C-alpha cells in the first residue's frame, strides 16, 4: 500500500492513540493504529465491540467525548492537514463537509424534536448556505430512496421506520458532498432485509458520488460487497490488513479466521455456528505479549512470553502474528 503515489491518499492515520480515563485507570482504546484511505476507496474496519474501531472513527474529526477520552498521540492527516492539532474553527469546516458520519442508531442519532427536513437543511446551511433550500432537501431525500420526499421532510424522526431514519442520516451526511463518509455500524440496528437495502444504497452512492467510505462493522459478512480493503482490529490495534477479496478468502491471522468462521451463512445446513472462545479482553488490564493469545487456537508459549509482534507487511498484506506470515 505504500507503493501508491501519495497524491491519491485522502486520509492518512499515523500511530493514533486514544485513551479513556476511568476509575480503574487508563484504558487504551486505540493504541497505535495506522492506515490510509485513498480517494474513492472503501476501507472496512472490522472487529468485535470494544476493540476500538468506533473510537478510531470518531477520532478522525476529534469527536471522542472528552472527558473521559483523551488523544495521546499520533496524527490524522486529511489532505496533509493534521485534524488532531487544527483549530476548532478549521475543524468545524471539515466536519460534515469533508468528513461526515452515519451512526449505528438512527433513532437516537437524529434529534427527536426537529423535523428531518430541518436537520438536513441545517447541514446545508452550515457548509453550503446557497443550497439550503427545501428543493435541495427533497432532492437529497429522493437520492437516498425515500418515497414521497416532500411530505416525509416534514416528519419527525419517530414517525419514520428504522430504515428510513438511516436513509435520512445518509442524506444528511451526503448533503455537502463529503470526501469521506464514515459509516459506523450503519446497519446493526436494522432488520436483515433493511440492512441489505442500506448497504446497496451505500454502494450505489459511492459510485455515483465518487467518495471514500470508512465502513466500521463487527460483521465480516457485510464487508465483501462494499469494501476494497479490510483492516481487522483487536484490543485497540490492527492485527491484519489487506485487500478485501484476498483477506476474506485467505485470512491469515487466527483472529480473522475465527471472525470469518463465526459468520452465519444462509443455506449452510447442519453446520454449527462457531463462536470465538473467551471474551474480549478488558482493556484496563491487558496481558503481556500478543493480545489475542488467551483466545488463540494456535497459541504457543512464546506468544505470552515475548513482546507483542509487530505488523509485518508483504505483498500488500500485513499481519500481526509471526506464525502465519503471508
Amino acid at each position: 500500500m505504500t507503493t501508491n503515489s501519495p497524491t491519491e491518499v485522502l486520509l492518512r492515520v499515523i500511530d493514533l492513540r486514544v485513551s479513556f480515563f476511568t476509575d480503574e485507570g487508563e484504558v487504551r482504546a486505540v493504541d497505535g493504529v495506522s492506515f490510509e484511505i485513498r480517494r474513492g476507496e472503501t476501507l472496512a474496519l472490522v472487529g468485535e465491540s470494544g476493540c476500538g474501531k468506533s473510537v478510531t472513527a470518531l477520532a478522525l474529526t476529534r469527536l471522542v467525548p472528552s472527558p473521559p477520552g483523551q488523544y495521546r498521540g499520533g496524527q490524522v492527516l486529511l489532505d496533509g492537514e493534521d485534524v488532531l492539532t487544527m483549530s476548532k474553527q478549521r475543524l468545524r469546516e471539515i466536519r460534515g463537509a469533508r468528513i461526515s458520519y452515519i451512526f449505528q442508531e438512527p433513532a437516537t442519532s437524529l434529534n427527536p424534536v426537529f423535523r428531518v427536513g430541518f436537520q438536513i437543511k441545517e447541514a446545508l446551511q452550515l457548509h453550503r448556505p446557497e443550497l439550503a433550500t427545501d428543493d435541495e432537501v427533497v432532492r437529497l431525500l429522493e437520492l437516498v430512496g425515500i418515497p414521497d420526499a416532500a411530505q416525509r421532510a416534514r416528519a419527525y424522526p419517530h414517525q419514520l421506520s428504522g430504515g428510513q431514519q438511516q436513509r435520512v442520516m445518509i442524506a444528511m451526511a451526503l448533503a455537502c458532498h463529503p470526501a469521506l463518509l464514515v459509516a459506523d455500524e450503519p446497519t446493526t440496528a436494522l432488520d436483515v432485509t433493511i440492512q441489505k437495502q442500506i448497504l446497496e444504497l451505500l454502494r450505489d452512492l459511492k459510485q455515483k458520488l465518487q467518495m471514500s467510505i470508512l465502513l466500521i462493522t463487527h460483521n465480516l459478512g457485510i464487508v465483501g460487497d462494499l469494501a476494497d480493503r479490510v483492516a481487522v482490529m483487536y484490543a485497540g490495534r490492527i492485527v491484519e490488513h489487506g485487500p478485501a477479496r484476498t483477506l476474506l478468502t485467505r485470512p491469515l491471522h487466527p483472529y480473522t479466521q475465527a471472525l470469518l468462521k463465526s459468520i452465519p451463512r444462509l443455506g449452510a445446513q447442519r453446520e454449527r455456528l462457531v463462536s470465538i472462545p473467551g471474551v474480549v479482553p478488558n482493556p484496563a488490564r491487558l496481558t503481556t505479549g500478543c493480545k489475542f493469545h488467551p483466545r488463540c487456537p494456535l497459541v504457543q508459549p512464546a506468544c505470552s512470553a515475548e513482546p507483542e509482534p509487530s505488523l509485518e507487511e508483504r505483498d500488500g498484506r500485513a499481519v500481526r502474528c509471526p506464525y502465519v506470515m503471508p
Partner: protein
Amino acid sequence: MSTPATSLWRTAWQQLRRNRLAMVCLGVIAFYALVALTAEGIYWYYRLTDQTPPYKQVNFDNRFAKPSLRHPLGTDSLGRDVLLQVIQGTRIAFEVGILTSLIAIPIAVVLGALAGYYGRRVDDFIVWLYTVFDSIPGLLFILAIAIVVGKGLLGVCLGIGLTTWVGLCRLIRGEYIKHRDRQYVLAARALGVKNFAIMFRHILPNVLHLVIISFSLRFPGAILTEVVLSYLGVGVQGEPSWGIMISDAKLRLWQGHWWELAGATAAMFFIVLAFNLFGDALRDALDPKLRTAEAKTA
C-alpha cells in the same frame, strides 16, 4: 479474564469508598448521629429523674452572654446555653428525619408496588391518589395536617410523612412495571408463587436501592421543613429545636445578638450539606440513570 461476581451493593460501596467527599460526608453524618444519640440519652435521663435538664436551666444574670469558654456559643434571652440547645436540636432533627421516613417510605413502596405490579384499575386508582396528594401545595398541606392532628412532633412528622411519599411511589411504580414481565417474575409465577411473595420477596430487592437513595435525600428536606414549621409555631413544643432557635433569634439579631442564629444555622447547614452530597454520591454509585429519571418519566 472474567470479573468476579460482585453484587450491586459491593460495587457501589467500592465506588463510594473511592469518593473522598462522600466519605467525609458519611463521617459528618455519623458524628451528628452520635450527637443525636447522646442528646437522646440526656433528654431521657433528666426526664426520668424528673430534673430540669441543663439546656433548660435559666440564668437571668447571664442573659445574652457572648460566646466564651464556659458557653462556647453564648447564651440566649433566658441565659440558657446555646450549644446545649443546638445539641438537643440535633436530636429533634434526627427524630423528624427518621420518623417521617418511617411513615412515607412504607406508603410509597406498598402503593408503588401494587400499582406497578397489578396495573389496570389498581394502577388507575393509585395514580389518581398520588396525583391528588401531589396537587395539594406541600407546606400548606403539612401545616393543615399538623394543625388538625395537633401541634408538636407527631403533627410535624405526620404532616411531612403523609405528603412526601409521592415522588418515591412514582419511581417504584415505574420499576415494578419494568420488572413485572421479566423472566424471573414469570418463572416465579409459573411455579405458583403468590403475588404478594413475588412483589415483596422477588421484586422488592431489585428496587431497594431507590428506597435507600430516597431516604438519604429526603432527610435534609425534612430537617429544612421542620425549621419552617417551628417558625410558624406548629413545630415541636417545649423543647429546643433548630427551627425554634432560628425563629427566636429573629428579633435578637436586630439587637446584635447573632450567636443563637449562627449556632443553629451552622449546625443545620453542615448536616443538610452532608446529606445532600452523600445522597448524590450514593445515587451516582447505585443508579446513575436516576438523576433525571424523575423528570423524564413524566
